[in-house]
């Protein structure tokens, strides 16, 4: 599980001014739980993800993934943690052009001790589970945006992570594809008992999430009006009409 306690990260922005990107945040995500995190731009979502991914060191507080404290990991251990224990799904779909879905999904595994065949054996069932069984040997330009995002999800899950962070995974998808991706994430989270923290603007995420929070000025705002207002503002104007 993921456990954040009194997490603090401040930035100096010059002339003595400090921005409290994450300001004493405490929360947890249990195994098999999908938590959606909403928040306006500049609310500290990305900083929080970077702290959990051991890409930034907090100024205070602790981050535990399973029974491991990761807030003070060295650069090397941080990389090792991301490789073995963390699955990171990015908003931008950065597949290597001209390379098959299978190879793209296996890219992360090449950093481990597995060879190509073993890596393929590991990611093939994942891709099949994600509905890409018939597209294993297709290159990115032969895949739809939704399919490309699913290849990215397969890559993130390929090492059997203890925690999945998803940063706007539906940001570049239409509503149908977005829903499919959210369904998949929820299914994987529940079947594999992986904690998933989903940072999103997508209001549909709340329906798939076990919990939803709003991040505002680096703090969690849990009461319903704030969440409703965040969801309203996040909803597409056309859909709300």
């Amino acid at each position, binding site marked *: 599980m993921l456990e954040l306690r009194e997490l603090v990260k401040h930035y100096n922005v010059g002339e003595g001014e400090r921005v409290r990107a994450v300001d004493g945040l405490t929360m947890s995500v249990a195994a098999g739980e999908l938590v959606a995190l909403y928040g306006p731009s500049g609310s500290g979502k990305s900083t929080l993800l970077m702290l959990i991914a051991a890409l930034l060191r907090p100024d205070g507080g602790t981050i535990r993934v399973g029974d491991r404290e990761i807030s003070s990991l060295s*650069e090397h251990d941080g990389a090792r943690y991301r490789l073995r224990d963390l699955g990171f799904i990015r908003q931008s779909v*950065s597949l290597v052009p001209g390379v098959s879905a299978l190879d793209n999904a296996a890219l992360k595994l*090449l950093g481990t001790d597995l*060879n190509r065949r073993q890596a393929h054996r590991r990611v093939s069932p994942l891709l099949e589970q994600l509905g890409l069984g018939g597209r294993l040997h297709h290159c990115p*330009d032969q895949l739809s945006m939704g399919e490309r995002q699913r290849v990215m999800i397969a890559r993130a899950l390929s090492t059997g992570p203890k925690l999945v962070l998803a940063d706007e995974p539906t940001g570049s998808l239409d509503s149908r594809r977005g829903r499919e991706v959210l369904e998949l994430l929820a299914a994987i989270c529940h079947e594999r008992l992986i904690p998933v923290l989903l940072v999103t603007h997508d209001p549909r995420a709340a329906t798939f999430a076990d919990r939803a929070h709003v991040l505002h000025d680096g703090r969690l705002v849990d009461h319903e009006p704030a969440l409703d207002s965040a969801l309203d503002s996040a909803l597409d104007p056309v859909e709300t009409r």
Partner: protein
Amino acid sequence: MRLRNILLLYRVRLRSRLVQEVFAVLGIAVGVALLLSSQIARASLDGSLPQSLDGVVGNMRLQLDARSPQGFPERLLASVEGLPGVVAAMPVLEQRATLSGPRGQASIILASTAARSAGLGGPLLRHFAATQLERQQAIAVALPLAQAVGLSPLQVAHLQIGSRREQVFIGAVLLESEIGALTDSPAAMAPLPYAQRLSGMRGRVTSIYVQSAPGREGEVRRGLRRLAAGRLNVQSSDFAVRLFDQAAGPANKSALLFATLSALVGFLFALNAILFTVPQRRGLVEDLRLDGYSRRMIVEVLLFDALVLGAVASALGLLLGDLLSVLLFHGSPGYLSFAFSVGSRRIVPALSVAVAFGSGMLAALAGVLIPLRGDIFSRLSLQAGARRGARGARHAAEVLAVICLAIPVAVLVAAPRAATLGIVSLVAALLLLLPSANRAIVAACRLLARLRGGRALHLAAVELRSDSNRARSLAVAATGAIAVFASVSIQGAQGNLQRGLDDSVRDLDGYATLWATPYGPGNLLMTTAFPAASARRIARLSGVQSVQLYRGGLLDYGSRRTWVIAPARTVAHPVPLDQLVGGNPALVASRLRSGGWAALSQGIAAEHHLHVGQSFILPSPRPTTLRVAALITNMGWPPGAIVVNADDYARAWGSTDVSAYGITPDPGVAPARIARELRRALGPGSALVAETTRQRELRGRAASRQALASLLQITSLVLIAAVLAMVAAMGALIWQRRPHLADMKIDGFGRGVLWRALVVETALLLVGGCFIGALLGLYGQLLLSHALAVVTDFPVVYALGTPVVLTSLGLVTFAAFVVLLVPGYLAACVRPSILLQD
């Protein structure tokens, strides 16, 4: 990380950037090729003379050497053999000659020794004994030489030594299996008595090679000095190699300087080609880091990229370099064969191969790792946006650029030989200034868009401002800038040197209007002496106003084989004004005419610590005390020149022989008419030929162009590389822009507008880049010209080469626009549907 996985990762990614990788490979390969071919040329040149020499001297370690081609009496051999500590002595007669056959002429060294001594010498002379030529009146030549002039065994050829022209019998043609690498030496062998008869030097030789008993070399050397009595040289038998190294040094150094700079330019082109893949690699590095690849693993992955790129490019470069050395960079500049027995064998040293390969690997490592160092070692961020400290970095870059611009000034003033450092600084300044230039271009474009309107201009302004296009824009501007910089500086410097040599040739031939000299490709410097028997006959020809006796020769002075030029007292300017470095021209002329004075090249004066007005002893056959009248350039002869008047020369050489007749026609009489009359008067059997100043000038220019051929070829290659780099950069820019163009089409922009915007954008980038390139190129031209003048002592003429700038600019821009016009238009025709495949 497992090597197999690194390999797999490489293979996987290679597919997505194959074209850019090919361009990078080509860029590095060009650099490696230039470096290797110039090294091969240098090694071949340096190695050919020792080979020829070994063929003659064998194990002999000392030599008693004549100071003029007239040699010394053979009877001195007995005295040498009688010296304590002498084990063996071998008399040798070496004469510069021209061998003529059905297919042409070749300048050769006719080497000969006594039959009883032949076994003591090297393979060339040993073979002479083995072929029993000593009993015959015949010569032996190596197969390549025989083939070059169209001769075969038992055939009759013509041999010209000085003004003598004789028929000779080819007794043997020697194969490589008999004399090994010496087959490529321009030498012929003859029995000593026969060679003496052919050259009109009965009872005379030019050298005696000596083998001393172990540990007694010093004693033998002292004995030889006593016999020499200050009129002959006592040297190590390989002394000619040292003289040759000195003579070939400037050509080698200038070729190496050019090759190094070209390699730098090749590397920069490669770096630019790699720059086009930087956004892709940067994305990959970021992804891999997010995926948990450690810095070490990422460095391993990138190192592997670089190693494969470097290995492939260097291997290709070695092949290209080898090919270049065969086809273009021949190792024997003809002008050195006027004074040395230079062969044409190609020597490929293992060290040169290793250095060229290593340079290619280093370039690839730097090219791949340097642009990504920040991405590997900086903190990762999930947010795209402006980087902090950009303004600070900009100021730092501008300050650094100013420092880089100041370094060449220091180099020019304090250490002109360190031109490579100056050029590297200029290139650094160029690259540091480009971002500022780009900002200026963007501002200009915005202003234009505001003033003139027009969608294409507006679009171009937006594209130029875009952060995502910055790396590509910079790469295009940098390619244009470096291409023009390299062409302008290298071509300009080569042009300045060429002009200097041309002037020198013109000045020398200007001593007279018409010349009569022993003909032969090796006598361009007019150093072949002959008896002045025809002077009166020539003076009596109608239309001839006067005949002057010109003398000249080669003289070993210190570590230099200098060129002694001795015009008649009557010439107006014994030292051509262009060649005078220090001293009053009128005073110099009057002193030289009066006799007892000499003008020396700066290099010779510096080596012997001589200044104007000081006395020195000219080590001529009859050592003569002279005073320094002036300092001059080396008159185009790398080891340097000494100018005295013809009478002083005759006194110092102890001979009234001349090297040429300088003829002045009566006013209004065409030189060509006199030349015809002269040919008739001399008759068909004469070895003297009549040439007008213009004809000699053309021959001289051809020779100087041959001497600078490697520089010219390097210059051409740089220009070709520049054009190719420009085509590659433009191709990559346009190809990578296709999805964006499709996006714009979806937004309603037509192909015409997009194409025009592309043209405007590229034109602005090129104008900016090429302008800075041309500007700094002129600076580089000055730096290189000065370095060449110092390194070679050649008479360099400084001129800002506007035609060179225009040609380079024109070619590079033309190449860019050809790519822009056709593939650019095709790219603008991209279907929007490529973005709508979902």
